């Protein structure tokens, strides 16, 4: 049975505990139990950079078993960037290996007195000296760990120089581009002087019904491979959302000033990438969809660079948002962010913000230490991650978040152009032309994020009968309608919570297409592995419980309704085109938010009521059982 390991880096003590089955069934692993552990181990109001903050690394309940795409890891902690609940999900192959070594969760507290890394193997956890790794980028760190431990099959999570220097939006990295990007968890790891976590496991994971698991997984794999979305993703990889989302209005260019990405037409296109840059496809653990590209730039200014990618935030951020229409510039900037360990979207947002200030004449080359900040300038885009990681020049100004950057620039009016939402996380897209999607994204507990609440089925023009069959209630198929959308957002958020708790990749769920997994398919695998007879309603309630635990954490920190409100730019109507005049009207959004709170059993501020907590067995939290 997989255990929880508690590691105190100050005292260098390690202890372990088994997970009681009752609690496991209430929360499930991954994001679920991590939310519970964070609420119990971190007190109210602590400084996120202090040793009292906890870094929780979790495998999903089903990670490591024979089933497609359950190889994701969840990392949780109080965010140094926003000061509220922070969590992030990373792909690759770390979480199955953690399970094979005998652990499902790692709770890391304290602060090491010198750079360290954890070496976990088959039930043993060693705290090792990382002085030979400190100061190196993420690729070099991983190579050195593989050489030191003499085993290329060790799986690693690490930070780059940005995390070491406590850049607020540094992130945790694996492989060449796998990232636990948002909410600055790399900074949290760096504040503990923890450079990397390396794991290698050779234990086995028994299933309660191995024959059933084999049959269910093979059947699901065969079904999945025949769906339309699988065939498209297997060929186009992560370029598929790029085709679909540009027309949908989910992309804005030049710091959200322009709708869509007109200047990228003809240059930043799927067929251009596949012809000129793509080398081969890689897959995460257990996934037959292999959506990850490996690229090489063969000619031009950046010739000779090789890497992994691109994925959504590179195309929408380092392409559209900064006004750059060329693939090779975006890929070179991505390579720099990967090496130094920076979150690509926050980096792109910062650069786009500075570029808009440059466009409006608010800053000039005196403020930018000589860098040219015209839209899409390739030198700046490729060079700035190194400056941020070293805290030099312009990098020193933006390394600690936007509020500090405004002070350091000494331009108070600059704050008007940095677009953020309620909890402090950067705006992803103004989302003016959907209803359930902005609700789902803005009410997410870490800040506005599409990975916690996007309702992709809102814009697919599905027949109402199909929508009712999926969501269990009638849903209005018009993306601009306000009614029934609170339930659509709720159902979707609970699905993603369960998916993150099991370790599943969202590209195999209804995040991507209506014929992929909902609650039913993971439930079959879960029951075959654990021997439980969980019903679909019970699994739905697990999602609700996870969501409420995260919400409790934020409520304890004092975040209320203001954390769920949209950014002012979302309320600006679109001008021209077929969506002329459409916007996210604040009064109608407020009414939809009230309906959403009522569905959840929360009060007007969005805090869970005592009745709701009692119904979900959360009234005695923090209970300090685990």
């Amino acid at each position, binding site marked *: 049975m997989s255990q929880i390991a508690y590691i105190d880096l100050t005292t260098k003590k390690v202890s372990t505990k088994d997970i009681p089955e009752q609690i496991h069934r209430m929360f499930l692993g991954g994001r679920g139990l991590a939310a519970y552990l964070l609420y119990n181990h971190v007190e109210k109001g602590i400084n996120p950079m202090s040793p009292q903050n906890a870094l929780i690394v979790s495998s999903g309940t089903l990670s490591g078993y024979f089933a497609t795409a359950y190889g994701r890891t969840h990392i949780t902690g109080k965010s140094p960037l926003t000061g509220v609940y922070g969590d992030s999900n990373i792909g690759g192959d770390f979480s199955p290996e953690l399970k094979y070594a005998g652990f499902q969760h790692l709770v890391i507290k304290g602060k090491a007195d010198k750079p360290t890394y954890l070496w976990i193997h088959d039930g043993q956890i060693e705290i090792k000296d990382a002085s030979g790794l400190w100061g190196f980028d993420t690729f070099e760190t991983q190579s050195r760990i593989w050489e030191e431990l003499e085993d290329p099959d060790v799986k690693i999570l690490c930070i780059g120089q940005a995390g070491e220097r406590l850049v607020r939006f540094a992130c945790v990295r694996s492989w060449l581009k796998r990232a636990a990007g948002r909410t600055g968890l790399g900074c949290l790891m760096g504040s503990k002087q923890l450079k990397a976590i390396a794991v290698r496991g050779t234990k086995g994971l028994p299933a309660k019904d191995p024959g059933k698991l084999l049959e269910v997984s*093979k059947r699901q794999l065969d079904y999945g491979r025949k769906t339309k979305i699988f065939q498209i993703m297997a060929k186009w990889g992560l370029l598929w959302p790029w085709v679909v989302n540009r027309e949908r209005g989910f992309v804005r260019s030049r710091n959200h000033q322009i709708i869509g990405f007109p200047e990228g037409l003809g240059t930043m296109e799927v067929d251009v990438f596949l012809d000129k840059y793509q080398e081969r496809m890689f897959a995460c653990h257990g996934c037959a969809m292999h959506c990850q590209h490996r690229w090489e730039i063969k000619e031009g200014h950046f010739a000779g660079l090789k890497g992994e990618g691109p994925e959504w935030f590179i195309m929408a951020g380092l392409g559209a948002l900064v006004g750059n229409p060329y693939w090779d510039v975006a890929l070179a900037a991505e390579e720099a962010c990967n090496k130094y360990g920076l979150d690509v979207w926050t980096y792109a947002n910062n650069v786009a913000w500075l570029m808009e200030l440059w466009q409006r004449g608010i800053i000039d080359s005196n403020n930018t230490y000589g860098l040219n900040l015209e839209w899409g300038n390739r030198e700046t885009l490729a060079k700035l991650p190194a400056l941020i990681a070293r805290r030099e020049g312009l990098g020193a100004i933006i390394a600690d978040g936007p509020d500090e950057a405004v002070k350091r620039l000494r331009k108070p009016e600059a704050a008007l152009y940095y677009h953020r939402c309620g909890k402090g996380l950067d705006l992803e897209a103004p989302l003016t032309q959907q209803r359930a999607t902005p609700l789902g994204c803005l009410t997410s507990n870490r800040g506005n994020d599409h990975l916690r609440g996007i309702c992709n089925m809102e814009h697919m023009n599905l027949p109402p009968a199909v929508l009712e069959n999926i969501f269990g209630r009638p849903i209005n198929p018009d993306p601009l309608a306000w009614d029934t959308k609170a339930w659509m957002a709720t159902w979707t958020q609970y699905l993603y919570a369960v998916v993150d708790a099991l370790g599943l990749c969202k590209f195999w769920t209804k995040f991507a297409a209506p014929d992929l997994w909902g609650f039913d398919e993971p439930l079959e695998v879960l029951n075959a592995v654990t021997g439980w007879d969980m019903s679909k309603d019970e699994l739905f309630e697990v999602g609700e419980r996870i969501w409420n635990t995260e919400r409790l954490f934020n409520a304890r920190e004092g975040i209320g309704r203001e954390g769920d409100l949209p950014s002012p730019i979302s309320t600006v109507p679109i001008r021209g085109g077929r969506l002329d005049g459409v916007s996210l009207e604040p009064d109608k959004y407020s009414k939809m938010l009230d309906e959403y709170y009522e569905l959840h059993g929360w009060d007007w501020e969005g805090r869970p009521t005592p009745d709701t907590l009692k119904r979900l067995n959360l009234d005695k939290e923090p209970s300090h059982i685990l």
Partner: protein
Amino acid sequence: MAAQKNLLIDANLCTGCRLCELVCSLTKERECRPANARIHCESYIIEGLRFPRVCVNCTKPACVEVCAVEALRKDEATGYVELDYNECTKCEACVEACPYGAIRLTPDGEVIKCDLCNGDPECVKVCETHAIRFDEHQPQHLTRARRGLVSYTDKVILEA
């Protein structure tokens, strides 16, 4: 002699999804334990290379020559190399001898080798890119596999 159907590997097509390891261990050992799978997919992340290693039933098997108790035998009728688990003394000479690293040592000290699942290999069914195929023996496939297989320790020694 009739051409034997064999496992053919193309390392260039492997994406490293590890579904072959998972289905092999679940089928053979009734638990999910890639350390006990008869197939292993070695990865070099920075270089971007994946090498599936599994028994390809050599025409002149090195493991058969080196086995002192004749636990490894090449069946003349089918052409497959079989390991008799009762005779095996676990001396690990075959693990050293195999040029593909296809005979593996489990963490518990057992020596294991692929037995083609009685003629219907499971790993072939789950491989999406057809990096493993169960087809008739053609010399160029074997050469591609041999060229691709370099062990990590060899690489370090060659470069040192």
